[in-house]
């Protein structure tokens, strides 16, 4: 369980390391796609939680995640259109998507309080990892000012989600 969770987190860690390994900064289209994918992954996890969670705070948290991440992603899509860039697929995104699918399948097997705890713990870890990637890699690499500003808003909102998730996690103990 812990190994699997760290694998999922490592995938998000790739946001930074994969780009570094290539010795090049991610391009704006890549950054936009990575940020968008990170949102899609969290929305999928939240939708699963809305149907599976038993604790009302966990369910409410999941609803907040869908609402906020859909709002951010709508802005991201609008920006991508405005900038006339085509989001680029790459190995980081493929790794993120694969790990996320595995994580969803793993969570799907859990029930009740066990599920609630696992979902919230993963949300804390996931937002932490995404925030780290935003701060150290994506924001500094973004060259378009509007993209940078959207990522900065994203960082603030995800930091809020991390604190919210930590609060919900504390309430489950």
């Amino acid at each position, binding site marked *: 369980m812990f190994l699997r969770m760290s694998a999922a987190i490592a995938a998000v860690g790739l946001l930074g390391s994969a780009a570094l390994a290539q010795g090049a900064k991610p391009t704006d289209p890549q950054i936009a796609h990575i940020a968008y994918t990170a949102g899609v992954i969290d929305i999928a996890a939240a939708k699963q939680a809305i149907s599976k969670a038993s604790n009302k705070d966990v369910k409410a948290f999941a609803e*907040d995640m869908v609402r*906020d991440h859909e709002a951010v992603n709508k802005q991201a899509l609008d920006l991508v259109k405005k900038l006339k860039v085509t989001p680029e697929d790459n190995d980081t995104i493929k790794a993120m998507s694969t790990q996320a699918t595995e994580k969803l399948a793993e969570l799907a097997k859990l029930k009740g309080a066990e599920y609630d705890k696992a979902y919230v713990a993963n949300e804390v870890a996931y937002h932490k990892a995404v925030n780290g990637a935003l701060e150290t890699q994506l924001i500094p690499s973004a060259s378009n000012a509007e993209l940078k500003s959207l990522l900065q*808003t994203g960082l*603030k*909102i995800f930091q*809020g*989600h991390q604190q919210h998730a930590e609060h919900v996690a504390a309430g489950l103990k």
Partner: protein
Amino acid sequence: MTPRRIFLLVAAVMAGISVPAEAATIQITMENLVFSPAEASAKVGDTIEWINKDIFAHTATARNGDWDVTMPPQKTVTLVLKKAGSIDYYCRFHPNMKATLTVAP
């Protein structure tokens, strides 16, 4: 009731109405996940106009439980202050959003 008494009564009511007219409306804005101003002052009876400029829903939740206001994205919600105190509040959805409102009696 004599006309004079009615006059006095009307005068008293008018005076009564003029008290709320003195109450102020204070605007607190949420933009880019920040409450602004972060420190605001008001009096009991004043109205707070919570202006949410973000695309996200926010709350202004008093830590002492006095009030809990929810603002949908890009909407303004008002709250009339009924109790005095120095109130720390935050957004339940984004607990990194924090501010203080001092309400004088």
